[in-house]
């Protein structure tokens, strides 16, 4: 038996959501399923900070080719997030701020630069990122 659908009243509320990605892609599925959570939040017109820390920076590495491991290549989906961000930036009627952030220290420890990523990101040092994190209202990590 399907239970009754329950809905909460969220009209007019905009919160600061942060999505923390700290895991490499493919070794585990967390990257893919966090991505799905980010996309759905756009429909609710919430603020979103998508941050890549530690091995999470590999999630947006250019040149992923999953043919030989026969897994779903989801790196193209980050392009959709970049588009959602553009929409949020351009639509002045919409109170929705999206940021895509890579932690500088994590990127550098792995020998990567901003050019290595499939999307445009803000590269931010840990002390500044800590301050941004501290302002969030919801942090979802996977």
């Amino acid at each position, binding site marked *: *038996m*399907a*239970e*009754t*659908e*329950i*809905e*909460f*009243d*969220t009209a007019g*509320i905009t*919160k600061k*959501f942060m999505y923390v990605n700290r895991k490499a892609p493919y070794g585990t*599925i*967390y990257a893919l*399923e966090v991505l*799905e*959570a980010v996309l*759905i*939040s756009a*429909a*609710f017109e*919430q603020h979103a900070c998508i941050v890549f820390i530690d091995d999470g920076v590999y999630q947006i590495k250019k040149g992923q080719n999953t043919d030989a491991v026969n897994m779903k290549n989801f790196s193209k989906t980050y392009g959709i997030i970049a588009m959602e961000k553009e929409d949020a930036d351009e639509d002045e009627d919409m109170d929705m701020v999206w940021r895509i952030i890579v932690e500088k220290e994590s990127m550098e420890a792995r020998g990567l630069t901003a050019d290595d990523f499939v999307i445009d990101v803000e590269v931010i040092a840990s002390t500044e990122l800590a301050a941004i994190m501290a302002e969030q209202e*919801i*942090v*979802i*990590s*996977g």
Partner: protein
Amino acid sequence: MKFGILVNEGPFTHQASDSAYHFVKAAIEKGHQVMRVFFYYDGVYNANKLSAPQSDDRNLVKMWGELGSEHNVDLVVCIAAALRRGIVEDNLADGFRISGLGQLTEVGIAADRLVVFGD
């Protein structure tokens, strides 16, 4: 205060679901409201009614279902994560319901706090 909870792991391999359960129980005992527990990733396995732990071990599937019913906690299993992992209406334990990922965002907005338990 109103809480939302996200559980990312199943009922055996990681302690996440245990910790979440004890947190929810303690919150209710302190007079708080737990609006919804959202089961995502392998967390959907917490709703597999066929789970039969050893008799001297806890049964989290049953414990979650009872806690949900007794205290009116909405136990939601993510439909996309569940389909992949073979959790469907047929094997869904009592007290749980299957719904979309939007229900996670929704409880994040509606609750005062969202607490994540995972690996």
